[in-house]
């Protein structure tokens, strides 16, 4: 990006991007830890994830404030405006990703007898793909890289496929082991949360693409 005549504007934008990156880092760690906590049944770790969400929320508020201030005081144009708008929207989405991680963490204590629960391993694999997406999309944002953003969008299919197979798997597991239905139902919600994380990562990727190029990537599956 070119330097602006008003140096303060540069500083504001840099700070905005920094805040988003910080939010992203926090929510990335939250996904990891939420999944770890889920697999190992570590409730302490889960509590840490739930606590971290507050910080993400606070950062989102800060991003909002700063973005509005930039628009009000500096009246940005063209790619600067896109940058600020994208930042505003991305902050909202990243906050949602943090929320989903928190939801996963909240369900950790509801799952019993996790040693014998086969669908859990599938969930771990799915979570891995989704958190990889979040990681990549944040890198794409930092580098303003539309190509990487497109790759992230393409990965979402994998998460959706995982979701479908986990759904079938869990449902048949419920049929076979009626005693575990309440735990298995929780797994379905968790799978749904991970699937949403993937979708939101896709959203961010679209916004990164928008901020970098000025148009949204063409919808390929429609």
């Amino acid at each position, binding site marked *: 990006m070119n330097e602006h005549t008003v140096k303060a504007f540069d500083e504001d934008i840099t700070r905005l991007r920094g805040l988003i990156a*910080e939010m992203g*880092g926090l929510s*990335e760690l939250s996904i990891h830890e939420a999944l770890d906590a889920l697999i190992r049944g570590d409730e302490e770790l889960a509590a840490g994830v739930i606590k*971290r969400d507050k910080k993400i929320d606070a950062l989102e508020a800060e991003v909002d404030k700063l973005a509005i201030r930039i628009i009000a005081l500096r009246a940005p144009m063209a790619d600067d405006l896109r940058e600020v708008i994208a930042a505003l929207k991305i902050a909202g989405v990243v906050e949602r990703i943090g929320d989903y991680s928190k939801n996963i963490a909240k369900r950790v204590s509801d799952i019993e007898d996790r040693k014998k629960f086969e669908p859990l391993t599938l969930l771990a694999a799915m979570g891995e793909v989704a*958190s*990889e997406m979040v990681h990549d999309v944040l890198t794409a944002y*930092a*580098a303003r890289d539309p190509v990487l953003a497109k790759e992230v969008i393409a990965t979402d299919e994998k998460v959706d496929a995982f979701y479908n197979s986990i759904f079938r798997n869990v449902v048949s597991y419920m049929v076979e082991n009626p005693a575990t239905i309440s735990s298995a139902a929780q797994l379905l919600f968790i799978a749904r949360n991970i699937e949403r994380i993937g979708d939101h990562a896709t959203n961010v990727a679209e916004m990164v693409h928008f901020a970098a190029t000025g148009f949204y990537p063409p919808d390929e599956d429609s």
Partner: protein
Amino acid sequence: MDQTGPHTWPSYLLCAATLIVMGIAGVDAWVIAASGLVWIGSIWILTLRPPPPQVAPQQDPFRTDKMSELIEFSGTPILLVDHGRISVANRAARKLLGKHIVGQDMRVAFRHPEAIRLLDKQNGGFTQIVGLVRRRDVWRMNRKVLSDNLSVVELLNQTAEVDIARAHTDFVANASHELRTPLASIIGYVETLQESDTKVAEATKHKFLSTILAEANRLQSLVSDLMSLSRIEAEKHEQPRERVDLKPLIETASRDAAGLERVPRLTFNLAAGLTVLGDQRQLEQLVRNLVDNALKYGGPDGAVNVSLSRTDNDEALISVADQGEGIPAEHIPHLTRRFYRTDPGRSRASGGTGLGLAIVKHIVERHRGRLDIASQQGQGTVVSARIPLVDGKAS
């Protein structure tokens, strides 16, 4: 005098002119003389004063351009953070984190919460971060504060060290697992024999005893393998000095490994007169392990060809080829790892310890040689070891 700053002659000129004007105006001569004295005196004092010391242009000890030249070619990623923004990143850092980070907020480059906590601290320090760039990589981040807003961040990759530490614990875990399995069956059978004193039929008893014997033998070979492995590792750095003629050694060692029953499956193709500097017993062990592996995994009646030849690089090439089903390519890089098995069930049934190739690899390395494993699925596996010849340079 240039160094005295402003030229002094105009002052004297001005002084003289004023005095003359005063004289023409008819001012008293004494007054003219006095004021002239004061005037000239003061100019004189002014010019005498030593020139103010030359103030060098403010030399900032941390000039960023100088700094960037200094760190540019370092292999470790180093960054300079100025007012929370990355002002300089050396080549390694740009390669690691991407070209875009220069000029960005430091949080754009390091968004890991641990890293941000370190960067926000008043005074520097260090922290270990898992997953800084890619998942599961381990970096140590050092930060040194240079002045109020300027700090240097250095990143050290510790992924390999952590892997080694993990490999050690894995080894201990594997070794104890492997040792415990035969022990468990020995104890189990012995207990059964002890408790049910008369009820066990003579045939069953016999079967139990032979299982115990087999397991005890396995335990023994495991312990001796572990011991030879640690012995070879211990003398890894001293090159063996004995002159060993390979042909007779390979012949006897192969026959030893095959035993009477399997000897007919061996075919030899050995060149004579190749001498290497080596350790007789270790080389025998190397051949024994390779031949035993080939016979074990090369199908029940497959022929095994043992060959010895001289390469163009003055090395002795010992290779053992079987006609078994081959090894899938993804396993080949791991074969020399301790306790690595391509198919746990089968190799345990055939009495392997999982250490054979690890020992071979260490022996070859001690002899300054190279081990190659080539395998074609369905056609067999060729394991070859190259060891430098003793007369390599002389001939």
